[in-house]
């Protein structure tokens, strides 16, 4: 739900294209935008580049921003689009690092090899499905928040997550893995 609030002076100045206001918003929101993008692309260096790309897109669109709306939600939406563009442009088959990050509570019943194959199969999913599943399932972000960031309805997020799991299961079965 977009917030309708009294626009702050810095947001009004940003709408007029004032660089000082943009710098202030950048410094205030860069960490949050970076973390949101990191959740989707899972690589700190790429997330940094995409954060700059996101703010570049934000700066270019300053005249289109409605200062009565939430800047953070708008930035998150633009960041999600930048991440989606990145995932679309990179090859689906990417090498995974040798040292896979450990789950907070690793299940001893799931081998390292199975984890690796699952991660590889997940990398092959279409970016739209992958982003929805990453944010909703892996990062456990509320569906409404994911929907807002992707510019789709909550129902559409659920559908994408469902389809992602179905395609993932198909990929794993093709490798002889019965999840």
């Amino acid at each position, binding site marked *: 739900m977009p917030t309708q609030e009294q626009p702050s002076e810095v947001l009004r100045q940003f709408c007029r294209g004032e*660089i000082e206001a943009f*710098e202030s918003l*950048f*410094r205030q929101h*860069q*960490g949050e935008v*970076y*973390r949101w993008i*990191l*959740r989707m692309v*899972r690589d*700190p260096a790429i997330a*940094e580049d995409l*954060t*700059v*790309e996101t*703010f*570049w897109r934000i*700066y270019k669109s300053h005249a289109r921003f409605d200062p009565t709306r939430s800047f953070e939600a708008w930035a998150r939406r633009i960041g999600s689009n930048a991440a989606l563009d990145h995932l679309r442009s990179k090859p689906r088959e990417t090498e995974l690092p040798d040292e*896979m*990050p*450990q*789950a*907070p509570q*690793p*299940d001893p019943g*799931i081998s390292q090899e*199975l*984890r*690796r194959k*699952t*991660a590889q199969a*997940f990398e092959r999913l279409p970016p739209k499905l992958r982003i929805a*599943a*990453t944010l909703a*399932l*892996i*990062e*456990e972000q509320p569906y409404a928040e994911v929907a807002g960031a992707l510019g789709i309805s909550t129902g559409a997020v659920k559908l994408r997550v*469902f389809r992602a*799991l*179905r395609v*993932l*299961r198909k990929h*794993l079965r093709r490798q002889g893995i019965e*999840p």
Partner: protein
Amino acid sequence: MTTDNDEDRIARLLKQSLPPMGTQPGAKLQRDLWPAMLRRLDESSTAVPWFDWALLVAVVAWLAMFPQAIPVLLYHL
């Protein structure tokens, strides 16, 4: 058709395979990105938009096809 149980199992397997990045130690931005942002802003202000290049190509092509138009163009400049 995938059952709820299947879905839950795959979701669990996925979470075990790809732990959340938002809670990892590196999830916090390690440096200020403003200098990189300034560089990006500088690059874009010096870059010539593609349509300017397209216009230049069109003018050169036009002059190559109709060289008699060059004096007229110079007169109007």
